[in-house]
């Protein structure tokens, strides 16, 4: 019996496809990774049982399984580098349970940011999300990939608690407190604790790019929707000037959403989509600006905003580089009112994704750094960009403070035309060169993805050996996403 017949036996003919057009579509993404091969088939399971059976079959046949849960992909992690079965999880996009008192819901991996935002809005709640993700992006995949939220306020805990996973071995397993017998129907546990049982299995799923198993549901947190918001902007001529104010504001636990953008990123995300809008903003926006959203909970929200604003003023008065705290952003009238709502929703589905709006393609070079390192790292990337003939005026820079400013997510965006092979090759060379230089400077690539993986994992040899031991328990035949991470 051929592979396709066996898959049809598990999932049904309508949910298995091995047509050349479909396979070709799954061999491309928005990354710079060249995928030479094709998958053998694409399947669309609808249940954990089906996922488990496909993985068991793959173990029997020793063929790869590549789970995908978003419509579009950016890092090469979902490409069938060694063939195998693409397991598209987008039919599994349900909200299985809502636990409103504990602000948790159990969701399937195909649930998108747009769906999650709509569901929580109905409940008078909100998602805490990364900077304007794709509406069609998977919430579970985003959290597994540790994409940083724009709101550092909620980093005291894990955004994702328990999971159900089919390990690469075919074992069906629940992590965290959802591991309690009888969960969910016959258990007092609500799955609120991510830890255990025994060891912290959920950590092996994070940053794993699908190499350990397939998550079939996750319990994810949502937060209360503030009743009052006020947005402030602090503008700077140079990135370095913004760093100390960010340290101080974060250290005093002021505000909710807070981040630093350069003019390029600002122009892409704040333009109104009308012709000339981007160009106009590019001319008018300040070179760098901090966005700070103060928010108030249901009782006495004005008083909360007042004490937080007073603390901001106190910091501003003590720092000469802060000339003023603005209630609006030059060049973007009305943005201050739109912004809180905008940051709590994914990018509008009807508009071209902001990262792709300029030239059709965008490659993100991102690392974890200390905020004080960011200006030097940015200088390195700018110089490298110049050496590779990239217009530094089109370099996007986004700095996201993390954990009260203890560290930051630093993201550089290179825009290019993906239909132009020469441009793509130039960006790839630039990306690798800049990545290597940042690595030597001390930047930490916590999720290096395909192109930077060899450099990072070769350097961390002991780490790589040990995570491989874990992999051999959870996926002994190495069927999950071969070619990703260090496997």
């Amino acid at each position: 019996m051929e592979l396709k017949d066996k898959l049809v036996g598990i999932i049904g003919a309508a949910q298995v496809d091995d047509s050349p057009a479909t396979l070709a579509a799954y061999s491309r993404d928005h990354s710079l990774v060249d995928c030479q091969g094709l998958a053998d088939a694409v399947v669309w399971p609808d249940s954990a049982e089906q996922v488990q059976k496909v993985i068991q079959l793959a173990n029997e046949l020793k063929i790869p399984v590549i789970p995908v849960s978003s419509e579009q992909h950016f890092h090469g992690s979902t490409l069938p580098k060694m063939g195998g079965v693409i397991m598209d999880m987008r039919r599994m996009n349900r909200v299985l349970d809502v636990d409103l008192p504990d602000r948790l819901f159990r969701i399937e991996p195909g649930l998108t940011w747009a769906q999650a935002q709509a569901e929580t809005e109905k409940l008078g709640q909100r998602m805490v999300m990364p900077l304007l993700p794709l509406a069609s992006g998977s919430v579970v995949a985003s959290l597994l990939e540790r994409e940083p939220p724009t709101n550092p306020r909620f980093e005291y805990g894990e955004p994702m608690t328990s999971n159900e996973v089919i390990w690469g071995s075919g074992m069906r397993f629940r992590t965290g407190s959802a591991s309690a017998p009888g969960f969910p129907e016959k258990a007092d546990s609500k799955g609120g604790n991510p830890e255990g049982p025994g060891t912290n299995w959920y950590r092996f799923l994070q940053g794993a790019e699908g190499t350990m198993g397939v998550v079939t549901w996750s319990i994810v947190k949502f937060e209360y929707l503030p009743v009052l918001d006020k947005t402030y902007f602090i503008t700077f001529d140079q990135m370095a000037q913004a760093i100390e104010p960010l340290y101080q504001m974060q250290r005093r636990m002021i505000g909710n959403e807070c981040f630093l953008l350069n003019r390029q990123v600002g122009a892409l995300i704040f333009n109104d989509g009308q012709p000339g809008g981007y160009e106009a903003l590019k001319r008018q926006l300040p070179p760098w600006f901090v966005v700070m959203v103060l928010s108030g909970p249901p009782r006495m929200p004005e008083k909360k905003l007042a004490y937080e604003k007073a603390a901001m003023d106190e910091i501003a008065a003590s720092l000469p580089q802060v000339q003023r705290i603005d209630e609006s952003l030059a060049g973007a009238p009305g943005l201050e009112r739109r912004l809180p709502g905008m940051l709590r929703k994914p990018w509008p589905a009807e508009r071209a994704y902001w990262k792709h709006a300029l030239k059709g393609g965008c490659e993100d070079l991102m690392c974890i750094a200390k905020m004080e390192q960011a200006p030097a790292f940015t200088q390195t990337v700018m110089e490298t960009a110049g050496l590779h003939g990239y217009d530094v005026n089109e370099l996007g820079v986004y700095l996201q403070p993390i954990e009260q400013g203890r560290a930051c997510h630093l993201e550089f965006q290179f825009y290019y035309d993906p239909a132009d092979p020469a441009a793509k090759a130039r960006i790839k060379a630039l990306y690798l060169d800049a990545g290597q230089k940042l690595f030597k400077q001390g930047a930490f690539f916590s999720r290096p993805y395909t192109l930077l993986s060899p450099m990072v994992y070769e350097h961390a040899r002991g780490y790589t050996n040990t995570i491989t031991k874990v992999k051999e328990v959870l996926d002994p035949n190495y069927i999950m996403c071969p070619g990703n991470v260090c496997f």
Partner: protein
Amino acid sequence: MPKVTEKVSQAAYNALANIVGPEWVTDDASITESYVKGGEIHDCIYQRGQQPPGVVVMPKNTDEVQKIVKVCFRYHLPYTPIGAFWGVHCGGKVPFHVSIDLSRMRGLDWDEKHMVAIVEPGLIHSPLQAEAQERGLYTMTPGGGSQAAVIGNMLTCNYSPLNYRLGLATRRILGVEWVLPDGEVIRLGSLSNSDDPYWGEGPGPDLRGLLRGYLGWWGKVGIITKMAIKMHPLFLPERMKPVERGMMSTLEFPDNRIKWYNFRMPSEEAMRKAMREISRCEIGAAVMRVPTIWRYRGKSVSREDFWSKWGPDEQKIRDGRATSSVCRVLLIGYTSEAQLKYEEEILMEIMTELGADLGRTKQSDQSWIKNADSAGMWWPAGGYVSVEFVVETLEHSFARGKTLLKEKEAKFTPPLVDEYGEEGWIQMTDMGHTSYFEFLIQWDPEHPLGKYKSGEYKAWEHWVASQRTAIDHGQYTANIGSLSVMGLTGPAFGPNYGEIYDKVRQAVDPKDISNPPLDLHDRVIEEFAPQWMEEYDFKPWTELMHGGQEWWKVLTSRGYKWRDVLPEWYWDRDDKEIG
């Protein structure tokens, strides 16, 4: 019955001495015998399962730890890493093991700007907290107290009411340096590509998952020789000053940035609503329900003092028969004085709506920022064990409390001290998403009336029974992993977490030398209370586990049986009340 007193071979001893120098290694029984008892749980199963080491060795740095572990690996010697020896769970359980005493490694380094402390395994919480405050930072001192080793505690528990705002301990673990059981040194997080440990996860799949679960491995996956810990910005211009001494020492609060409130709630429903509403309003630094007996313990300076206070009030408490109605709230002005005023205004509004009465309380901290009273809190009755201490959701906390109270009163009281309807400690964690629950039982081996004397065995059985009720009710429990009866929990949770848990352990420790065995409790039950396997419906883990018995093969190859490794005094007890 025989007691195994075999020492390590001369060759192994010499190898250890060559690493650390002869003054830092010994097999003198007067010293090795002192490595049997930790300072935590008085007279209970963890302690009974301990063995004196064959040799004690004290390395001064990672290089020496690595070399010692390689010697252990070469000679197939089980070893037990010891930080402050606070927890008897960590004591060696097998004969001729090597105690690797890490107390010479007390290094403490700082990256103040990025709120990172880099600590070595011998460092305890007290100097960490004191130095942190000098640098405008603070951390959460855990229930174990200021005398607990920082790394040991971060790897095992590290729970306190401050988890409400500071989150789970595992999230505070940053870069880590780790000597694996085969002697390989690995570095996690940003340490994997630099000497700066400020970031913990990755690269890629996060190996911090192997450091611990809800609880830790108790030394079964190697030795952490360096750990960076996320600290928090101190909300005061200068450190709080301690007053009084010893277990009564406290930190006095300034009146403008940190404040306790005790409310008497009119009903359990009002208690729940208060906890929820405080979280919904995103205020507070800690929110908890404090059991009545904990307050007696907190006010006692000795065992005699405890009984002198609890005894006369026992009649009153019995007649009242109810769980505590005291909701205790800590507010902190993290941002400014104005924040404290704002949060106080909201708190008072909530409590007024719920009909709560504000009581008096001392404006100082004895337990969570500077934890000086942990010994006082746990020892007054003489015997103690936390049957449960688990994080789940608020309703789970209430449900688990009712389940355990019912079980305790039906089967185990007396000899366990009767608390007359008390359903345990409950606090909010993770800004109200979750809740911590603790059910603490006590007995007194030397109680003058003898009423609670034989509590140890009933406590042990209650602890085993609690794992059964967790399974039956679908409740989460702290008693999972090596701190559980593996035959009970191993198949039930996950399900079958025990299978992959043990396989992962074997992969990391192929010779089974890092603080074995995994299944101590199963083995002791098989020997002493086999009837529990039928009563609580489980099979011995030895029948279920998949390999991982390398050390036991060595033991049996030398002609020993499992029962031979139990301490001599285990067999000499005059009471036979187990089960």
